[in-house]
């Protein structure tokens, strides 16, 4: 009769860990590179950059269609949080050179309109039409929400116009700050520090 060796549970776990050791570093690195490459090919790329301005840090981002986001007076993390988590974010000053150069000229008072492709495809047709009208307002001028609504053929839609302007993903470049209330008040502004920023922009353009 042969004596069988008695093994306790701790020994089983020890042998388990030894027998099922993990993969080697080369196998891990190879797979990691493959998954990253797949993600780089699959995920839409968003390149972004930042600059300083009299209104604080300005952040801007482009996708393959054009400028898709702009914000100022906020933290970097707040700006980046707006993008779809499935996209690939890349801080790329070179890709942003043209956008940032035009913004610098604007803040220096050397430019009043922008020559940039803009992507507002994520907005509804109504929101896009409101922003199209805002683009027709010349620098140094202001229109009321009511007038924008009239231009759209919807004179009773002043409030939806205001809501659509608040959804402008690229303030300054699409000059939603040039739209004010009928009573002469500034109305609202969602960019940067709100009405303080709106007032500053209108003063820069000579509208106030």
């Amino acid at each position, binding site marked *: 009769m042969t004596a069988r060796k008695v093994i306790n549970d701790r020994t089983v776990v020890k042998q388990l860990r030894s027998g099922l050791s993990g993969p080697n570093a080369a196998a891990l690195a190879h797979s990691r590179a493959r998954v*990253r490459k797949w993600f780089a090919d699959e995920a839409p790329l968003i390149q972004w950059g930042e600059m300083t301005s009299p209104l604080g840090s300005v952040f801007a981002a482009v996708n393959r269609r054009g400028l898709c986001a702009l914000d100022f007076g906020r933290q970097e993390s707040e700006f980046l*949080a707006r993008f779809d988590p499935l996209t690939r974010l890349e801080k790329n000053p070179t890709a942003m050179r043209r956008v940032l150069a035009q913004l610098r000229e604007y803040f220096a008072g050397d430019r009043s309109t922008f020559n940039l492709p803009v992507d507002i495809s994520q907005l509804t047709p109504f929101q896009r039409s409101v922003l199209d009208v805002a683009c027709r307002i010349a620098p140094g001028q202001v229109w009321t929400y009511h007038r924008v609504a009239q231009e759209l053929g919807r004179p009773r839609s002043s409030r939806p116009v205001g809501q659509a302007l608040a959804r402008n993903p690229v303030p300054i470049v699409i000059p939603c700050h040039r739209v004010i209330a009928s009573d002469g008040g500034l109305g609202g502004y969602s960019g940067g520090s709100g009405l303080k920023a709106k007032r500053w922009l209108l003063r820069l353009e000579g509208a106030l």
Partner: protein
Amino acid sequence: MALRFEELIQRHHDEIFAYLWRLMGKDGRRQGAADVEDIVQDVFLRAYESFSGLRPNSNHRAWLYKIATNCAYSQLRRIKNRRHKLSSLERSATEQQTATEVSSLHKQMEQTVRNLVNELPAKQKACVTLRYLQDLDYPEIAQILSCSQESARANVYQAIQRLRIALEKET
């Protein structure tokens, strides 16, 4: 700020790869890594497709493990079906050849443990791998395998007992 998919890859790729490596019964060599790589790729592809539907406060790690477990189960089922199609003669020849190659390259005991683990029922294998090789706690294991913590504990216990008895016979 919500977790971005890119961060998900960065944070969890390595442990998911290691988990699948063990679950698929691979040894420490580079050989066979391509199979695991394919499954890992499939895991992240499936995760990418359903990432938008995930609640921001979800346990992303457990969710990835769950996808990985399902992908591994599917692959193991395919392998099992393929093996069943082999004639008993072919199978025995293949196994003998594999055993000879392995014994010449690796410690016999490590191979024995791997073989024993590979023979465990799928759920016991997943439970014991998650608990003792991936060092996950029972609430997470229960979440990954869609079972109660008691069931996860019971599966780990049963797996260890099976392995203990089998190892006692081997030694």
